């Protein structure tokens, strides 16, 4: 029985129903009224070999998910988008990443069960009194692995590139607000889709069918709670004592990171590593307070009929709180955390923020935005758009779906598929040589205000286009059209997020120390972003010289910096 969220979270319900309708019509033999797959008899388990994690077993329930179209579509979604234009071997897909996260999640779980046996038993007594502990642990493990398998199912073509466009769909934005309210943590539009997919009747029906098929077949059937699987995907759990399971799927030290850091680096051919064995050797459970000042957690647990004891006499900070178990590493793992953080920095520097990767993904994002606009013009609403994104995988670029009949933007498709990428014409960082450094700092700080970012980009681009159209009259007289034809945009990527590091502790029950007191992480972040994070202006090669001049004009107008040294410093060499 699925917990009913329809009344309090209507947008989440609407998205879930939309996905269910899509699955039923797109994959009728799996999710239609008379599904015939999975076709029995079912195997108890199978082994799958992974280039990173070796040979691993998957049980019948996991195989049902893996073999279904919900996970199979991830075989055609590149994990690192168009990064293979720069790193030709980075052709790994979301599919193998999802299997990898599943493997990593259970390795972390197994290490915890081994190293924290008493705490596991204590939690089982409190959360599931009277039940056999080993069965309870097996159930937690199954739920955890399913959540890991399903955590990325909301992705569409080229992963994070299409996710950029998700935030322009109001239903998904509203869904993200409801999800944040529901779980008491800020969640994004991408997570909404994975969460809602896990709540579909399609998944529940599939689980019931495979359960019925194995029932009586001699395969051991341990019941699982799919509501908990959905919560784990977004880093929560049905009970505060089980919060560590949510941490394994989604937190600063989660299984997702353990897989993608190594998978992305290995696929790209970058010699980045962290010490997984030490991580597993030192991972522990730590009892911590989760404050609940707005009663969000009480409401969350209540939605699933769970009433864990809440300390209403308030903690020393003045809030009612739950006692929870959280994922933590011993102090001996400080170097491992250091490696993980450095790996993340390096991946941003080498791959995600590489100028050619940004150029390719920027073009693709504009192409997808135009596709969405055309769907809107054709009368498609938000639900229909969500359906289109679930239908699309990377091969959509080769299909008619991107024949928009608009020469300017159709050229983008051709350029993306043939790697005819724009060039970075202008690039600056907060430390670019500038006689009026404060103006540059203040301008860049304005870009950190989410509600002003697009407006500032548009203003800069408009100032640039105004000058560019004077220099190149053949580009036309409208701002958007001229920018599109010249392949020009203002690129301000999101910097890597390390904003929860001060909450990261190492140690054990006898003493804990914040990781920020061991490493000067703040100075690392500043050093990275100051020298490696670039704001860029891109342009097609044939307009580079004129775009450069127009960009200097825009700097004078919008940054109010008029200095030849600054102009020289931000000009990207064409040699």
């Amino acid at each position, binding site marked *: 029985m699925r917990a009913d969220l329809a009344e309090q979270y209507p947008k989440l319900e609407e998205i879930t129903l939309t996905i269910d309708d899509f699955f039923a019509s797109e994959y009728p033999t799996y999710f239609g009224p008379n599904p015939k797959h999975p076709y029995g008899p079912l195997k108890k388990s199978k082994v799958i070999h992974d280039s990173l994690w070796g040979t691993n077993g998957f049980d019948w329930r996991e195989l049902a998910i893996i073999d279904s179209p919900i996970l199979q579509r991830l075989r055609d979604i590149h994990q690192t988008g168009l990064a293979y234009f720069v790193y030709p071997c980075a052709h790994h897909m979301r599919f193998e990443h999802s299997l990898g996260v599943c493997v990593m999640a259970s390795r972390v779980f197994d290490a915890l069960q081994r190293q924290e046996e008493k705490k596991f038993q204590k939690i089982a007594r409190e959360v599931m009194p009277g039940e056999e502990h080993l069965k309870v642990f097996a159930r937690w493990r199954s739920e955890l692995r399913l959540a890991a398998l399903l955590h990325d199912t909301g992705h569409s073509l080229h992963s994070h590139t299409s996710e950029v466009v998700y935030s322009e769909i109001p239903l998904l934005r509203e869904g993200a607000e409801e999800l944040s309210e529901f779980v008491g943590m800020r969640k994004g539009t991408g997570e909404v889709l994975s969460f809602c997919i896990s709540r579909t009747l399609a998944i529940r029906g599939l689980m019931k069918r495979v359960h019925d098929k194995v029932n009586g077949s001699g395969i051991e059937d341990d019941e699982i709670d799919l509501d908990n699987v959905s919560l784990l995907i977004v880093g929560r759990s049905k009970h505060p004592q089980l919060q560590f399971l949510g941490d394994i799927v989604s937190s600063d030290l989660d299984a997702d990171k353990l897989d993608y850091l190594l998978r992305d680096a290995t696929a790209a051919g970058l010699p980045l590593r962290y010490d997984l064995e030490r991580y597993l050797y030192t991972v522990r459970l730590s009892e911590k307070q989760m*404050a609940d000042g707005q009663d969000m957690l009480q409401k969350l647990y209540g939605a699933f009929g769970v009433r864990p004891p809440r300390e209403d006499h308030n903690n020393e900070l003045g809030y009612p709180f739950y006692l929870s178990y959280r994922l933590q590493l011993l102090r001996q793992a400080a170097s491992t955390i250091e490696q993980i953080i450095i790996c993340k920095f390096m991946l941003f520097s080498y791959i995600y923020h590489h100028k050619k990767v940004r150029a390719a993904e920027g073009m693709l994002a504009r192409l997808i935005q135009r596709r969405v606009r055309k769907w809107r013009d054709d009368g498609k609403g938000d639900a229909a758009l969500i359906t289109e994104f679930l239908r699309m995988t990377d091969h959509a670029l080769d299909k008619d779906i991107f024949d928009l009949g608009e020469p300017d933007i159709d050229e983008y498709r051709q350029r993306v598929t043939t790697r005819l990428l724009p060039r970075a014409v202008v690039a600056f960082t907060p430390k670019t040589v500038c006689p009026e450094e404060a103006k540059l700092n203040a301008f*860049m700080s304005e870009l950190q205000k989410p509600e002003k970012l697009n407006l500032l980009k548009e203003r800069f681009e408009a100032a640039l286009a105004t000058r560019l159209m004077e220099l190149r009259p053949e580009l036309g007289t409208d701002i958007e059209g001229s920018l599109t034809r010249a392949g020009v945009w203002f690129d301000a990527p999101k910097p890597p997020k390390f904003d929860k590091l001060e909450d990261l502790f190492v140690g054990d029950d006898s003493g804990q120390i914040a990781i920020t007191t061991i490493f000067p992480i*703040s100075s690392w972040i500043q050093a990275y972003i100051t020298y490696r994070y670039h704001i860029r202006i891109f342009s097609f090669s044939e307009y580079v010289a004129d775009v450069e001049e127009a960009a200097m004009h825009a700097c004078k107008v919008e940054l109010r910096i008029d200095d030849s040294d600054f102009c020289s410093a931000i000009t990207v060499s064409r040699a």
Partner: protein
Amino acid sequence: MQTWGLQTEEAMRAEDMSLGDFVQQILVQLNDNKLYFKDERPWHEFFYRFKTAPDQKGKPRFLKALFFDWNGPYPRSQELSEYLHGLHWTGCLSAPNSAYDSFTLKSDVREIWQNTEIEPELREFLNVAGDAARRELVVNAR
């Protein structure tokens, strides 16, 4: 009014002010004081208290919508945390200590931000917030 790159003729109103604008105006009032940085808790609690305080004249609209995570011993706003870090790496704040325990606002950045014109009711609210910030956000003031 002059907020960077978004010049208009009108003074900033409570309904237009963003989280970032608010942080800037608080920082302007705190002059050269050293402020908490590595320990963000005072900042999150400061904003949470203003969010949950009864409505009053001049209270910026963004405060009502500001979201706080409940995932630790105190409420925590991801938006606030990201913006504070953003101010640091964009060079608006400097950390005059090797441990990055605290920071101060750069004087030439302050000069730019303090030119912002602000409506009287909002100014009054900001003054109250500024007094609270001096008590709660300045290192060793608590």
